[in-house]
C-alpha cells in the first residue's frame, strides 16, 4: 500500500493553521479509491481543469484540529462594529464583579458545550466572573437523562420509580459536590434541573436554560421535572414555539454562531477553491449544497429528488455534506438510501465528513450558489444560520426554529415539499439579483440576532434584570 503522494501539510490550505495526518483507507474499495486518487498537489491544483475529476472518497483525518485560543471582544469589532462592542462594555459595567455559574452535563461535544466554551471567556473579559461546572454521573444516570431528553421532545417513555430515584440521587450527589455561592446560577437542560435544591440566599438568582423543544413533552417526564423548574427565577428557551406555560418569566435566547470560529470565519478564496478541487466540485457551474448529518429529519433524499426536478431546467450540481454515518446505525442506513437515490449521477456529490472538518464545511458553504436545509423536523437549525451569515440565498423547511431565521422572501425562502424546494432552486438560480438580495438580508438578520456578540448582550441584560429584581 503506497502512501498518499505528497503530503496534506504541503498542499492543503488547512496547513496554514494546523495539519493532521490522513486516515489510511481500510477497506478494499477504499484502497481502490485511494489508488485512483488524482494528484492534487499545489501545482496540479493550479493547473486544474474547469471540471475537476470526482473524488468519491474524500480524505478524512482521524484527529480534530488543535483548539484555537478564544477570541477577545475587540476581535469582533471588524464584524459588528466598534459601537456595538462598546455598548456591550457599557452594559457590563453595572454587573461588573458579579459572579455567574454555568452548570451542564458535558464539557465537550454538543452545541451547549461549544457555546459555553465561546461565551464564558467573553463574560469574564467584561469582569462578570463566570465559572463552569459539569455534573458527574454513572451510566445509569446518563441513560435515564438521555431517555428524559428524548421523552421531553415527544418520544414514548414509561417513567419508572427507579428512573426517578437514579435522577434524584445523582443530582443530590452533584449538589453536595458543587459549591453554589455565585450571584446567578444557570442550569442548562434537564439533566441537572434538580440542583435547584442547592438554592442559597434570597438574593441569589437561578435560571434554567432549556436548549430542547418542550412543545410536546411526554406528560409523565414533564410532570416530574416541572416542580423543579417552577422554583427557578426564570427560564430561557431557544424559540417561542419550544416553551411551556410556566409561572416564572421566560426569556428568548436564540442559539448563535461565532463568526470567528473555524466554521464561520472569512476564508481566502484560494482555500475555497482547493477544497472544491479536493472534493471534485466544479465552481464554474452553480452549486446547491445541504450541510447536515445523515438523518431522515433532514430529508437528504428529498433534496436529491428536488435537485433532479430542478436540473431539468437549470444546470447545477448538488453537494450533500454531512456526517454521523460512522457512529450511528441510522446514519449509515440514511447514507445508503441517499447513495441509492443519487445513483450514478456525477453531479450529486455526497461527502461523509468527520465532525472536525469545520474549515471544509465553511469552504463548501462559501462556494455554494444556494444552500438548502430541507428539514422536516428541526431544532433551531444552526446550519441555516451559518449559510445566512455567509450571505447565501437559502431554501429551508418551515420547521423548528427555522422560521425565526428565514422570513419568507425577505431573508430566504421557506418550503414545505420536494416540489416547492425544486421550484425555489430553479427560481433562485435564474433570478440572481433576487437571490443576492436574500443573501444580503439574511446576513444582516444573523448579524442582528444570531451572533455570539448578541448572545453576550443577552446574558449581560439578563444578569442586570435579574439582579435588579425587575423580573419579579
Amino acid at each position, binding site marked *: 500500500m503506497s502512501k498518499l503522494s505528497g503530503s496534506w501539510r504541503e498542499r492543503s490550505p488547512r496547513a496554514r493553521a494546523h495539519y493532521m495526518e490522513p486516515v489510511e483507507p481500510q477497506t478494499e474499495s477504499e484502497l481502490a479509491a485511494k489508488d485512483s486518487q488524482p494528484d492534487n498537489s499545489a501545482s496540479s491544483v493550479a493547473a486544474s481543469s474547469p471540471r475537476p475529476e470526482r473524488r468519491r472518497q474524500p480524505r478524512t483525518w482521524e484527529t480534530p484540529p488543535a483548539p484555537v485560543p478564544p477570541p477577545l471582544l475587540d476581535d469582533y469589532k471588524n464584524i459588528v462594529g466598534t459601537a456595538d462592542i*462598546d*455598548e456591550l462594555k*457599557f*452594559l457590563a459595567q453595572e454587573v461588573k464583579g458579579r459572579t455567574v455559574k454555568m452548570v451542564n452535563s458535558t464539557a465537550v461535544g454538543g452545541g451547549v458545550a461549544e457555546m459555553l466554551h465561546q461565551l464564558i471567556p467573553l463574560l469574564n473579559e467584561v469582569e462578570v466572573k463566570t465559572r463552569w461546572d459539569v455534573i458527574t454521573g454513572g451510566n445509569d444516570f446518563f441513560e435515564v437523562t438521555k431517555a428524559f431528553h428524548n421523552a421531553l421532545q415527544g418520544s414514548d417513555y414509561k417513567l419508572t420509580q427507579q428512573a426517578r430515584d437514579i435522577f434524584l440521587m445523582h443530582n443530590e450527589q452533584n449538589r453536595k459536590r458543587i459549591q453554589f455561592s455565585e450571584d446567578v446560577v444557570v442550569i442548562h437542560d434537564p439533566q441537572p434541573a434538580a440542583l435547584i435544591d442547592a438554592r442559597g440566599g434570597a438574593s441569589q438568582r437561578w435560571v434554567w436554560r432549556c436548549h430542547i423543544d418542550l412543545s410536546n413533552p411526554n406528560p409523565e417526564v414533564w410532570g416530574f421535572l416541572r416542580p423543579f423548574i417552577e422554583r427557578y427565577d426564570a427560564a430561557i428557551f431557544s424559540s417561542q414555539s419550544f416553551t411551556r406555560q410556566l409561572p416564572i418569566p421566560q426569556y*428568548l435566547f436564540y442559539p448563535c454562531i461565532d463568526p470567528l470560529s473555524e466554521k464561520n470565519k472569512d476564508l481566502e478564496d484560494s482555500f475555497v477553491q482547493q477544497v472544491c478541487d479536493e472534493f471534485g466540485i466544479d465552481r464554474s457551474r452553480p452549486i446547491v449544497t445541504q450541510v447536515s448529518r445523515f438523518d431522515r429529519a433532514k430529508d437528504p433524499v428529498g433534496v436529491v429528488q428536488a435537485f433532479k426536478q430542478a436540473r431539468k431546467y437549470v444546470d447545477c450540481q448538488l453537494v450533500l455534506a454531512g456526517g454521523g454515518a460512522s457512529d450511528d446505525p441510522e446514519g449509515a442506513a440514511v447514507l445508503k438510501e441517499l447513495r441509492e437515490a443519487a445513483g450514478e449521477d456525477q453531479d450529486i456529490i455526497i461527502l461523509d465528513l468527520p465532525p472536525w472538518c469545520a474549515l471544509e464545511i465553511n469552504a463548501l458553504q462559501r462556494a455554494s450558489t444556494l444552500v438548502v436545509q430541507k428539514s422536516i423536523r428541526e431544532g433551531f437549525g444552526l446550519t441555516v444560520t451559518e449559510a445566512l451569515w455567509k450571505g447565501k440565498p437559502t431554501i429551508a423547511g418551515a420547521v423548528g426554529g427555522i422560521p425565526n431565521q428565514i422570513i*419568507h422572501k425577505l431573508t430566504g425562502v421557506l418550503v414545505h415539499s420536494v416540489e416547492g424546494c425544486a421550484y425555489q432552486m430553479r427560481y433562485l438560480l435564474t433570478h440572481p439579483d433576487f437571490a443576492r438580495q436574500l443573501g444580503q*438580508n439574511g446576513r*444582516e438578520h444573523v448579524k442582528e*440576532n444570531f451572533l455570539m456578540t448578541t448572545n453576550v448582550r443577552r446574558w449581560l*441584560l439578563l444578569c442586570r434584570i435579574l439582579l435588579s429584581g425587575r423580573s419579579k
Partner: protein
Amino acid sequence: MSASTPILVRTPVKPFYFNTSAHLLRITPQKSNTLAEFLDALRDCPEGSIFQHSFRTLQEHHFIREGFSNDFAHWTLSACNEPGLAERLASVDVREFTSVAELRGRFIQIVENFLQRAPATGTRMARETFYFCASDTVVIPTSFVAHTLHEFTEGLRGVSVHCIHHHFIEARLRLKLMSNDFSQWLHEDLGLTEAARQLNRIDIYTMTLEDVREQIIRVVERALT
C-alpha cells in the same frame, strides 16, 4: 429663511448625550392560532408586547427596506393569508403615536373592523401560531457626547443603529411628542427649527436604519453650511 442665507449656529444650551437601549425578549403567555384569538390577545397582552411587535420589530429588521413594518401584519399575511388585513396593519405608522395604549387601540380597531366584515375568518386556523413576546429594556450610555453640531454629526456616524432607533424612533414614547430626541435638541438647544422639522419627515418605512442615519447626517450637515 432662504436656502442661501447662512445659518448662525449658536452654542447648544446643553450637550446631546447619545444613549442606546438594549432589549431582552420575554415570551408572554399570550398566543393565537386564529384571528379571533389574535384580537383577544391584542386586548390582553402587556404594553411591552405591542411595543415589541411594532417599534422593536423595526429595529430587529432594520436592514429591510420593504415588506416588514410590524409582526402583526407579517403574521396575518404569512400565516393567515389575509393580505387585506395585513396591508391595513402594515400601514400603521408608529410615529403617529406617542403612547403604546393609543397604538394598541389602532391595531384592535383594524382587526375588529376586519372581523366584523368577514366573521368567518375569525375561527380559521392559522398556519403558524403567533407568540406574543415583550421587551425588557435597559438604557445604557455610549461614549459619544455632542457639545457642538460638528460633534453631533460625529456622534451620528459613530453610534450603533440601536442608538439611532433609541433617539429617533422610540423617543416619542418617552417625549410624548410627535418628534424625536434629535429634532428636539436641534430645535430647543440650537434653534435649528427647519432642520428639526426635516428630520421628522424622514421615512423610516422605506429605508434601512443605515439609510435613515445617512439622511439625518445629510440634514445636519446642510444646517452646518
